[in-house]
Structures are given as C-alpha cells and as structure tokens.
C-alpha cells in the first residue's frame, strides 16, 4: 500500500477512530524490521494529520484546536494503545516518535495529561515510556520541567489529598519517579526567576517519603536502562540528588524551616552513601552541585548590606540560617566526596566553595579533601 492509499483509507474514518487506526499503522511503520526514511516520514505525517489533527489533508496547519471532548477521546485512544503494546522497545519507539524533541512543546498538553492519567491509574507501561522519554530528552530539559510542572499541578495543587496514590507511584515505576524528581527539583528555589518559588508542602512530604523509603531511588534511572528503538543512543539520566540538595541547602536562608528539609537532607546523605561505586563517577555532577553557591553568596551580600558596620565575619558566623545552610551544604559535599560520586571538575567545585562565607565544617571538609588528594 502506498502512502497516499493509506492516508486515503484513514480519511474515510472519523476522529477518534482514525486516530486509533493511525496509531496501529504508525506502530507497524516504526517497529517494522527495516524502517526506512520514507516510512518514518509517513508515520510523522499520520501523527500530525490523524492523531493530533495539527494539519489538514493538504498539510496546511489547522488553526482549530481540540475541543475538550475530542482531547479526552484522543487521550483514551493513546492510553489504550500504549497499554496494549507489550514490548517495551516498541512502545518506547512510538512514544518517542509521537513526542519527539521537535514536536514535544506542541503536544506537551496531551503528553502531560496522558502521564497524569498513567499515574492515577498506575499504568506501569505508560510510565516506563514516559520515563524513557524524559531521559532521552534530558530530564532537566525545559520540556521535562513543563511535564513535571503539569504533574505537580494535577497532583499536588489541584488535588492535594492524593498523597497515598503518589506514595505508590515509586513502586510502579522507580525510574519514572527518579526522572520526575530530577525535573521537579529544577522548578523551585531558582533565584534567577523574578520571584523565588518553593515546593508545595504536599510535594515535599511525598518526596521525603519516597527518598527516605528507598535510598536507591535517586539512582534508579541510572541503574535500570529502558529499552530504546534500535539505533537510538541512550542518554545518561541526571540524578535528582544535586537538585533536591539545593532545596535543603537554600531552605534556611529563605526561612523555610520545615523539618521536612532536615529529613530530606538526611535521606539524601544516606542516598549518597548508597550509591554504587563506579569508575568514572556518574551520580552527581560537579556543575550541578555548585548551583547553590550563587544564591548563598547573594544572600550574604545582602545581609552585609543591610547591616553595614558590623564585622563581616562575626555577622556571618552569627547568622544561624546562613550557618545551617552552610552546614548542610558542607555535609553533603563531604559525603559526596567520600563516596567518590562526583563527576566533572571537582577542583572547580572546591574553589567555588572556598568563596563562601566562613563556616567551620566547610573549612574542615575542604581541608580534609586537600589532605587526601
């Protein structure tokens, strides 16, 4: 059957049935034994025209978007389709093609809702594919962050009492949970934004529960690799450790004194100790760990500005929040150094840390590090 014949055939069916049939066809095209460029193109066309209805039969962009009903119908078709594909590799292939790097931003609304449904219904299959998708796109990439944001909205803001459901999530798919954590960590305590945003309490609670329950969760996405379409290059997943650590380190200087941060911090330290030894290290990036330095420096500068005339060192030493922040930071750095799980430029990290306001523990950590070198 030629491309046009296939399209002609599909055009005879109404939405959402055409989407359903198109998906089956796409699956055949992508997962065939020797997929060529032509088939790939056809699959992409079918997606645009019959699944997402983004273009009309002539390939022109359609302005009209889905109605709420249509969107729901499409979600149902997608959800059923992914749950019916048994092979992880095949399912991941279709998933990655449907929501590729170039089309993802457009289709992110549908994607978020699809994943949201998967979390709600505990569909491990969709979650595995979503996890693979996050990893292949880079789990700290803007698209992933948007997905994370949408999920936080659905599960932590709109329905805040869904904690029990979420506590089970990591049992269904630890990989997805780990990738989600990495993405979600990037959403908060970002002081380059106009106004700094803190994670909602329910989110924090859930994360503490997840991480403290299983110290291996943070590296779950690195331990378990999901099957990819042939020829695809597996991307290394970033662990949520550095991102979440940033929350704990910065929380005191933003007066976020919830005990949950202490708990999260301790769980992260334990997680660091549980990281399997690898050579070269791969669990925490030096670059990622440096992030809080900027915020702390800005905080101390402002502190100094506000209280001019007071001796800088005394000022910093007497600021309990600043010291707590630095203690937590130093503890994490020490344990990460001890576990030899930092990759990238460790010297640069240590240099940056030396710029921070005076803290006894941090001094000890840097001193011991230099001694051991």
């Amino acid at each position, binding site marked *: 059957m030629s491309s046009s014949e296939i399209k002609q055939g599909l055009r005879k069916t109404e939405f959402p049935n055409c989407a359903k049939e198109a998906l089956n066809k796409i699956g055949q095209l992508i997962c065939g034994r020797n997929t060529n460029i032509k088939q790939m193109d056809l699959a992409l066309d079918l997606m645009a025209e019959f699944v997402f209805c983004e273009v009309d039969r002539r390939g022109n962009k359609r302005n009209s978007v889905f109605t709420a009903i249509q969107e729901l119908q499409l979600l149902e078709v997608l959800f059923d389709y992914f749950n019916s594909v048994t092979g992880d590799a095949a399912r991941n292939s279709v998933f990655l093609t449907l929501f590729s790097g170039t089309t993802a931003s457009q289709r992110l609304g549908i994607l978020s809702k699809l994943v949201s449904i998967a979390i709600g219904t505990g569909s491990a299959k969709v979650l595995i594919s979503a996890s693979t998708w996050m990893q292949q796109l880079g789990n700290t990439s803007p698209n992933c962050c948007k997905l994370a944001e949408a999920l936080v909205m659905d599960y932590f803001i709109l329905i805040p009492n869904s904690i029990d459901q979420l506590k089970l999530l990591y049992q269904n798919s630890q990989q997805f949970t780990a990738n989600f954590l990495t993405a979600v960590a990037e959403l908060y305590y970002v002081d380059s934004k106009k106004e700094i945003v803190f994670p909602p309490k329910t989110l924090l609670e859930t994360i503490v529960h997840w991480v403290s329950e299983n110290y291996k969760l943070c590296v779950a996405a690195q331990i378990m690799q999901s099957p990819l379409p042939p020829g695809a290059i597996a991307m290394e997943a970033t662990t949520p450790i550095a991102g979440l650590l940033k929350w704990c380190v910065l929380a005191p200087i933003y007066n976020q004194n919830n005990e949950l941060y202490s708990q999260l911090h301790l769980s992260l330290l334990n997680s660091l100790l549980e990281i399997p030894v690898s050579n070269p290290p791969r669990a925490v990036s030096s670059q990622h760990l440096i992030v809080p330095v900027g915020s702390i420096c800005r905080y101390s500068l402002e502190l100094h500005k506000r209280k001019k005339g007071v001796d800088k060192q005394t000022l910093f030493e007497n600021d309990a929040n600043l010291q707590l922040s630095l203690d937590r930071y*130093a503890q994490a750095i020490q344990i990460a150094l001890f576990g030899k799980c930092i990759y990238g430029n460790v010297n640069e990290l240590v240099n940056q840390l030396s710029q921070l306001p005076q803290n006894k523990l941090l001094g000890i950590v840097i001193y011991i590090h230099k001694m051991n070198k």
Partner: protein
Amino acid sequence: MDEEYVIQKAKQALQTDPLSAKAWMLTAKTLYPNNFGVQFEAYKIEKCSGHVKETAKCFSNLIGKFQQQPEFWEEINLVTAALRMETESKENDFLCEMFKHISADVQHKLLLLTADHCKDIHERCKLLLLLLQRFPSAIRTHGSSLVETLLSHSLSASTDANCFHKLLVCDLLPLLNSQSNITLELAPKVIFTLLHKTLKLHISTLKENQQSNKDLSCSEPWSQLFCVIEFVGKQLGWDPQLVNFTNWTKENYWQRLMHFYQSANWDDFTNPKQLVYCLILFLIYCLHQYNMNMSMENYVMIEAFTDASLPSPQIPEHKAKKRKTEVDLNVPHLSTENSNKSITSNFMLAVNCWDLLHSTDEINSEFTSLSTMLGLEVWLSSFYIDYSIYKGKYEEALKRLDCDGRAPIMKAITKACIHYTQYNYLVAFENVIETLNLLPTNIGTTSTQLVVGGNQRHLHFLPLTKLAVLQFCSKLVLRSIRQKGAKSSDMAIGHTLVLMQIDWPQEEEMLPSLMEEISRAGSFAYPHFQDYLIQVDILEELAYLWSIPGGKITLDIVPNLTTRRMGTRLADKGMKDVIRQAIRKQISRCNEPIHELIHSFLVQEKLQISPTLN
C-alpha cells in the same frame, strides 16, 4: 580539634534535632574513617538512640579496623555474651538484633576473633560452638579440633568436666549430625573415647537416678546417647541401619539388629564391634524401661503356678503357627496384671539382647571387656537375677540375690518362689513367713493371673501389694501342702481349706477331691476350724458330709468336745447341737476380712503348718 568539633556538634544536636545529629554523624564518619574515637562515638550514639541497622553498620565498620582497641573489644564481648543469652536484658536483645543486621562475613569474623582472644577454654569452646552453629561451613576447619578439645577437657578431673561434656554431647554433636555432608578428620581412638565416656556417664546417671528415685522417664539423656551413637556410627562408617534413631521403635530396631547379625560379614573385624556397641545401647535402653516398669508399678518377678488341667494361655497366632506341635516347656509364659504388655516386651527384648551378646565367642569377649570398662555389671545385676529365673538357673539367681540391692521383701518373695520350684517347701515356707513380716501397707487387689493352664513354665510380675503378696503366699503354701498330698492328713486338708479362702472361688475345683478324701476317711478332725474357716461354700460342703444324706461323717471341729465324748444318745444329740451351732457361728463370720484371717493363720499356726510340708 576538628574531630572533636564535629562529634560535639552531633552530640549537641542529639537532644534537640535527631535528624541533624545523624547528618553530623554521617559527616564525621566519612571525614575520619580511620579515627577510632570518631567511629566508636558514632557507634555509641547509634546504639543509645536504639537504631539497630545503623548500629550494625557502625559495628561492622569498627570490627574491620579497630578490634585491637580495648574499648571496642569490650563491646565485642558484650555482643558475644548477648548471643549466648547468658543474661536477658534490653541491651542484650538489642545487641542480638544488631548481630542479625551484620553481614555474614562480619559475623563470622566477630565470632572467630572473640574465640581466638578468649583465655578461658570453656568460653572459647562456647564461642566456637556459636560460630559453627551460625556458620556450618566453618565446621570443616574447626569441627574436629573442637570435638577433640571438648572431649579432652571432659575427661579431665576438673570440676567443670561435665560442662564440657554437655557442650559436646548436647550442642556440638547434634549440630555435626545435622550436617551430613561434612565429614571430620577424627582418629577412631578419639571417637571410641567419646563413645565410652558418654556410655559410662549415661550408665552412672541412670544408676544415680534409680537410687534416688528420680524421674526415670526423662528422655533427654537418651536422645543425647542416641545422638552420640549416630555421630560415632557416621564417623566410623557403621551400618546406617544400626545408628538411625529417628522415628524408631524397639521392635523395629531389634529386627535391624537381627538382620545385621544374620547378614554381616564376620571376617570384617569392625562388625562385631559395632554390633556389640549397638546391642549394649539397646540392652541398656530396654532394661532402663524394664526397671522403670518394675519400680513404677512395684513389681517383682516370680515363678508362678500352672495347672495342667486347664487350657494353655493363648499364644499369639503367628507364634502358634511356628510351634504348632510342641511348646517348649522351658520357655516360660510371662504374665502380668492388667496385661501390661510393655513390661514383658521390654524384658523379652533385654533377654534376647543378652542372649545375642553371648552367642559367639567374638561378641562375648568384646562384650565382657566393654561391660567391665563401662561399669555395666553392677547395673545389670538386678536384671541378671530375673534373667536367671527366666532361664531356670535358680542356683545362679539365689547366689546373685544375696548381693543385690533390692528390697528385703522382694528378696524374700524371690527366694520363696525359687525354693518352692525346687521342692524345698519348708525353706520356701520360711521365706513366706519372712515375707509376711514385711508386707507392704498398700492394699491392692488379688490377682487372677497367678495360675495359668498348660505345662509351660509360668513367670508372673507380681505387684507388691498386701493382697497380691498374701494371695501368692497362700497359694504357694497351699500348693506345697498339696504336693505332699500322698500322705495327706486331716491337718493338711484343713490347712488347704483355710488357704483356699483367700481368693475363693479361684481354687474351687480342688474342693470335690478334698471332700472325697474326707468322706472316704469317714471323719474330719481339724482343731483350727473355729478360728479360720468362714467361707460359706466350704462350710456348706462340710455340713452336707456331716448330714445323713452326706454320709454322717464325724466332724471333730470343736476342740474341747473330744475329751468329754460320751456314748449316750442324749450326749450324742447335745454334741450335734454343738457342731451345728459351731458351723452356724462360722457362717455368720463370713464377712470378716479374709486376708487378715489368712495372714494370722500363716503366721500364728506356723508350727502347725510346717509338719504338713515335710
């Protein structure tokens, strides 16, 4: 100092913020991995906070590097002490729980280290045992030496020799037995020493228990003994059939012994040895149970009576087939009260063991030397008396009886029945009188089993109760009198009638012949009539003989009447009244306790009875 600062921070936070305390602790541990003070402090903090897993982690960390530190060494000792459950406390429970969370490698290391350090040999052995219990794989390297150490110390004269033996037999050997895939390199000499030691100890324990009347049914020492035999058998490659005591029965084991005896290759010098050991064990076991039966029910074995006119006791069918035509008259029939099978089967198994142990020269000599070494002879002496009686070796039994420790009344009874069997009725009677002076206070009941039919010898397990013993004595005297029946006199007939009363109507069938004798003689003079004859049936028979239809026999039963006998009719009539009244009077006494009557008869009329036995 830096390390002090970090530790200080952790300790400070402990009270106010446990989470941050832990974070500090983790930091300290990673900062100073080689600093004992820091690591040990971390351990103590986790221990105080009751965190099992974390404490275990700290402990594992310490043991690799710091076992030479005295402070930590104390801690190690606390853990091993807790594992041995010497004292129960919250801390011990915690430490045991912690031990479970330590990896197997570290556990092994811990136990071995402590054992190596331990100066007290008993403690050291306990630790090694603990190690082997937790890590059976260590048996290969430490098993043999531990057996040897324990054994050599259990043989020593020190006060705690028994502790070593207990450790060896109760704890180590069961463990070794359960690990069938592991063989130890132990010299046969060591193994035999172990076996002898255990048997000796066991026999002496049994002896002690018996003498102090302790609970003899205690099964523990037995399971220990079986355990040792099992171990020895395994190590020496004995026939597995002979050393397997799981779910065994005595009968089944006896079959196995017989099968081995019949099929073994006797050229192999190990075979008589293993058979003798197993036989001795089995003999002791059966005898122990036999003695238990005997002492619990308080039995004494007697040569009881037979009556050829009665049918033979029922012989179980399968045996009946074998010896359809002839019953070996020398193989006694064994009877008990309320058909207590276990006592006869225990006795028979012991007898069979004994016979087998004396069946060939090889086995016999092996047994004799072992028996001397183990001190078995003293223990066997009581059984040997019963065995001799069973085999009809009465002289042997009498000889042994004098030096045996059984109760005087039992000795008297045994002697009585032996002398009776050997027709020494007067001596037997002496023994009866001796017995009667020692009668137990426990009343009991009379037996129906003292006489069985047929010609086969009859052995009975007589309960030591007043009635049973008295009944046996009466029957013995009665039969003694009857044996001399050829020259039967009125006195003999009268005594017989009196003695019959004890278990009337058991001896009823004797009555017609007695009455016939009286009626043939035409008169019956018995001076003890008024004292001892109160049985209605017997009195009626006598009254009948005295009546006109009965033959008008002269009854001389009122002692003083004979002296004033007169020939007048009137006097004759008066005499009749006197006799009638005498009989009536006796009948009215029929509810008097018969056993007291018989007892006083035998004791008080001793001089009257003796002549009838000669």
